[in-house]
C-alpha cells in the first residue's frame, strides 16, 4: 500500500468537492489511480484526456508511484 497526496484543480476539484486529500492505495501508476478515483467520484473526463504530474513535474501515465508522492491529475488546459 502507498500513501499518496492527491491535489485537484478545475473540473476535477469541483467534481471531487475538495482541493486535496491523502489516501492509501494499491495503485502503482497514475493510470490505475485515476481509474480508481474516477470510478469512486464519477469524474467525467476519461483517462486519455487527463495528464499526470508527480511532485510538480509531468510524468508518464505509467510511471511508478512512490510512497509519499504528491500527484495532480491535469484536465485539458485552456489558458490564454
Amino acid at each position, binding site marked *: 500500500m502507498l500513501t499518496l497526496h492527491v*491535489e485537484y*484543480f*478545475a*473540473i476535477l*476539484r*469541483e467534481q471531487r468537492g475538495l482541493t486535496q486529500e491523502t489516501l492509501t492505495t494499491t495503485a502503482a501508476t497514475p493510470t490505475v489511480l485515476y481509474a480508481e478515483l474516477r470510478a469512486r467520484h*464519477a469524474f*467525467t*473526463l*476519461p483517462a486519455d*484526456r487527463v495528464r499526470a*504530474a508527480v511532485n*510538480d*513535474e*509531468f510524468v508518464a501515465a505509467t510511471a511508478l508511484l512512490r510512497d509519499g508522492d504528491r500527484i*495532480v491529475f*491535469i*484536465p*485539458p*488546459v*485552456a*489558458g*490564454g
Partner: protein
Amino acid sequence: MTREMITVDLAAMSFRISSSVLDPTALSRALADERAGACVTFEGWVRNCNEGQPVLSLEYEAYALLADKEGARILAEAHAKFPLLAAHCIHRVGLLQLGALAIWVGVTAEHRGAAFDACRYIIDEAKARVPIWKKEHYTGGTTAWINCATRGDFAGDTR
C-alpha cells in the same frame, strides 16, 4: 531532457501567474532596450462570446508550481529557437470581466521576424501546455470548463 539544457540570460525572460490586474504599459516599459528594433506583444482579452454562447465573465485557475516551470521552459525554448533580446509572459488567474486582459506576451528582438515568430510560439505553446484552466460563465447562468466537455455532457449523460 534537452529542453532543460538550454542556457539563456534569465533576466531577459520571465513567466508569471498574477491574481491582480495586468498593466500592459508597465509590462511593455520593462522591455525597453536600445538594441531592440522590434517589439511584438500579444494580449488575450475576455470576449463576450465563445462558440456562439454569450459570455458574462471568466474564471482562470492555475496549478501555479507546474505552470511556472512549464512557462519558463517555453520561454527558454523561444530564446533557443529565435534571436531574441527578451521574452516575458504573464497570465491572470481569478474572476475576469468582459474585456479584461487574461494573458500578456511581450517579445523584443533586433528584427521583427524573430519577434513575431517567438511571440506566436510562446502563446501557442502556453495555451497547449501550461496547466491553467478556464471556466466560462454564460449570461443564461450556466458555466463550462473549456476543453473539458465529454460526449456525456452533450447527451445529458453524466457518467
